[in-house]
């Protein structure tokens, strides 16, 4: 038995089916793509080791840890601040549990690391009406003046906890939600995006 591989399954498997939905039109108002296979891990600074942690992250991952609720993108790993001394590390290069293993090795004694690669569904929501859709659930001002590139926030969408951040596309947002509410979130998202027309892009797309 044990030699049989176990295959991962997205919480949106069979739910997020690629295609064009909602109100018809030439260009969809919203595009939705699940970012699958991401490495995700929480990083919490050990007491009195905040500075050393910053140094280590700079050395190993080549970036400065963000101070507040922001995202800093690194070549291999990005860090999203979600609380004082706490970050969500996100990586495409180090997928699944590999990210937590890597962090554990490099930041041992400086931070507490927990693998979260299975616990989140990450969606990239873009398109000209992405902000209008998110306004239907997210009680945060996403106007670029209030939420410039590199911003991140932890909040709720339609009663579901989310982390949201924006990297380099002013129309596009990454949203990490708890895996267990993925189906509920999808119903909210598609009901809200319907009037603008939306396209579900195949897994891994952007």
């Amino acid at each position, binding site marked *: 038995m044990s030699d*049989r591989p*176990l295959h*991962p399954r997205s919480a949106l498997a069979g739910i997020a089916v690629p295609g064009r939905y909602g109100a018809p039109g030439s260009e969809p108002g919203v595009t939705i793509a699940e970012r699958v296979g991401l490495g995700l891990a929480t990083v919490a600074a050990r*007491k009195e080791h905040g500075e050393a942690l910053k140094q280590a992250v700079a050395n190993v991952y080549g970036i400065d840890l963000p101070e507040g609720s922001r995202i800093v993108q690194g070549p291999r790993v990005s860090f999203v601040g979600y609380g004082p001394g706490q970050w969500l590390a996100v990586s495409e290069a180090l997928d699944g549990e590999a990210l937590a293993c890597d962090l554990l090795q490099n930041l041992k004694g400086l931070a507490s690391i927990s693998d979260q690669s299975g616990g989140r569904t990450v969606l990239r929501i873009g398109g000209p009406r992405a902000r209008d859709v998110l306004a239907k659930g997210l009680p945060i001002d996403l106007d670029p003046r209030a939420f410039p590139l590199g911003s991140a926030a932890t909040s709720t969408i339609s009663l579901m906890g989310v982390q949201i951040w924006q990297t380099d596309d002013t129309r596009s947002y990454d949203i990490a939600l708890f895996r267990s509410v993925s189906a509920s979130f999808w119903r909210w998202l598609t009901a*809200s995006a319907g009037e603008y027309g939306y396209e579900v892009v195949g897994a891994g797309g952007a």
Partner: protein
Amino acid sequence: MSSQPNRLAEGGAIDRSKTVRFSFDGQALTGHEGDTLASALLANGIKLVGRSFKYHRPRGILTAGSEEPSALVELRSGARREPNTRATTIELYEGLEASSQNRWPSLKFDVMAVSQLFAPFIGAGFYYKTFMWPAAFWEKLYEPMIRRAAGLGRGAGVADPDHYEKAHAFCDVLVIGGGAAGLAAALASARTGARVILCEEDFRLGGRLLAEPDEIDGRPARDWVEAAEAELESLPDCRILRRTTVQGVYDGGTYAAIERVNDHVPLPPAHEPRQRFWKIVAKRAVLAAGAIERPIVFGDNDRPGIMLAGAVRVYVNRYGVAPGKRAVLFADNDDAFRTAVDLAEVGVAVAALIDARKLPSAAAQAAAERAGARYLSGAVIKRVRGRQGVKGVEVRDASGKTESFDCDLVAVSGGWAPSLHLTTHLNGKPQWSEALSALAPGTLPPGMSVAGAAKGAFGLGSCLAQGHDAGAGAAAACGFTGGSGKASAAADNDRGTVSPVWQVENSRGKAFVDFQNDVSVSDVKLAAREGFRIPEHLKRYTTLGMATDQGKTGNLNGAAVLAQATGRYLGAVGTTTFRPPFTPVAISAFAGHHRGQDFRPARLAPSHGWAKEQGAVFVETGPWLRALYYPLTGEEPQDSVNREVANVRTKVGVCDVSTLGKIDVQGSDAGTFLDRVYANTFSVLAVGKARYGLMLREDGIVLDDGTTARLAEDHYFMTTTTANAVKVMQHLEFCQQVLWPEFDVQMVSVTEQWAQYAVAGPRARDVLQAIVDPAHDLSNAAFPYLACGNVSVGGGIPARVYRLSFSGELAYEIGVPARFGDALVRAIMEAGAAYGIAPYGTEALGVLRIEKGHPAGAELNGQTTAHDLGFGKMLSTKKDFIGRYMAARPSLTDPARPSLVGLRPLDREDRLRAGAHLLPKDAEASAANDQGHVTSIAFSPSLGHWLGLGLLAHGPERHGEILRAYDPVRGGDVPVEVRPPCFIDPEGERLRV
């Protein structure tokens, strides 16, 4: 049939090229695009639109706005039927269906109208006085009667098929109202670059400007409105929300608004909501909600055809409708008498201007001359002729002489009162203004300013100036000091001398103060005589100011009558408190997306899909959906549970326990921290071991329990109950951040990260050994009871195994990253097939734990202590921990407290019921003899009879005693034997094999 006989030949802001078909009480009618239902009904000569609430009196259209108390109709049909909608705000659309309310068998002949004959008996406080005695009549007679009579329209009775949604918006300046002042405010603030939201209740911007022949900046006001609208739309940071009513003001600059996105079309287009509930956060707000005209109180002042003067001008000028053929004006201000000129200009005959003021007014006199009408000053209407519509009025002049005028329209005005409701939502107190003879805004919500008529400035020039200043000021307060442009200018209209007339003494017929609730002058006077002297009390006693309009047109007159009846100065009488919402809001709009299966988000375990495939029946456990049991084809629920339990006791079962709260506790002080939050000790737990832990609240009551495993020197993995996961995390964060911030400890929830399965039963090891990668030895010697450790499955996927048992059998829990959960449970089922594995649900889980005497939710009920549950010995005496001090109080350790026991029926055929009271064997069933209760029950397939757990006074000392389990609700009265809580394998040998 002549189409729209009362439609004027020209004029109005309607699109005459577009004819809209609609029906009222089944009658096919037409109107035009740009009409409201009210204007279209009037265009068709229909004045009688409903019956009143209490007396079923014929009622027409009083106003042209959302303050309408009388013209309430049922809109649409079937599942979309909506009662009590105001004809004055319903935008006409193709195929609109409306019907009148509160009448039977027909609007024109209503049987219940006879109740007018009993009117003397249903005055103020009628419900309170009549329906008091005998008490038994309430349920059977009075309440059904009141319910049938109360409420005008009928609800649909079925679920609303349309979609509603919520939305958030943020801005610097929120402008409430899109009339002259609001447009000026929006222009002035938006021009500075500030983010502006303009909310207008109407489907068209302009407010009164649509209804008055005014000029702004030397051109027609309507042209100015169009230019203002175009400019606002061209500004990128200005958003105009039409058909949007701001309903409430909340702390922190938060405003609630309802946008009627698709109420004006036959059906909401696919994918679009019917309504949208906006939560707007604004740094500053400008209230420019205008003013509401006040009727004058006189006998039969509710007859169809009696209309507010301002509304008459709206119907004539905005909708191109003549609300009558021959009019009489009755007012106490010059503004209202301008109506005569507007009417005359469109060919409506004006019989007379009845000026209630003692001194004649030159302006009113001039208006009368221009309209070719008689002018009577110091005169009042003493009688109205006509029942289902006005036919004429009798007027008493200053000398007491009576004169009669034929007419089918009476335009009434007692002057205007600021629409200040939103200023009072945060406890703001309006102030009486002698100059306005009305309440004016007093203290304002933080960040709000008021402009225009809402502030008591009724002249157009003043409205524009105030709006501009308020808009520029609001933007400046947000840091936008750029140019706000030039303020527009207009002349102020002269209102003339203000000497308000509230009511006509000695007029004939019922004189109504509140049309919607049928509250008359005599009701208010009676209430005053009976001691209801405060408006709040008057409201509750007479219903004055209740229901859909909340007294928008009636409150001021009510206060005036009350002042007079109690001999007080009107300004000292006060008012009732205005609360949100400003106008009625559909429950669906409050619910938004959150209805049906989306009432709240459902949390699904990683292998939910697999469980569904197995035919599982699910149950809500907190926010989670968990498998309750897995019925085989044709199996009864109890049989499924029995089978699942037996399978665990004899073979092996698998249960999804992913929903348990899971918390990673890390850091060099993690052990010390756990010692503080658990009643027992964790710092000495060896790495690779797990332990049951008990958490108390600071008051000594049990908070939660669970197992915590030590994965590394500085890494513990805690589990909590499913129901308390969020509460426990919050509690731990309080302890970490506030009580002991000096500890090096970090916590994060990993509930979602781990899919976790309990594999339990005599063959559990066989199954699990086949699942883990070959390097891992799960033998009893290598991996004894309470061991834990990292393993891998499926060729290198990291997993954790804990040898824990809730069932009392040999058992393990295995966790993998959640995305592998579905694959793992399938692999477990496959590996377990040879051993007879079957999944078991939470119901079997409950039976297994009751057989083992483990307390759970029904015992951890927020009232029990560690001693009550038999865990007294776990309370460490060597350290401080949350709840330690208070748990030691004598009252919490008293053996007389109800404590955990096992129970089994003396007659093994008897069924036990949770909730049954425990009484001494031969004692009478009384509260005094109550010694505890049954907390949990189960049919034990292992023992072949029902058994239970209970909390019983002196419980542990009473094993062997026979008691009554008395259940008066379900009729059970069963002799039970008190036992130790654990019924199966009390020595715990099975779980250590």
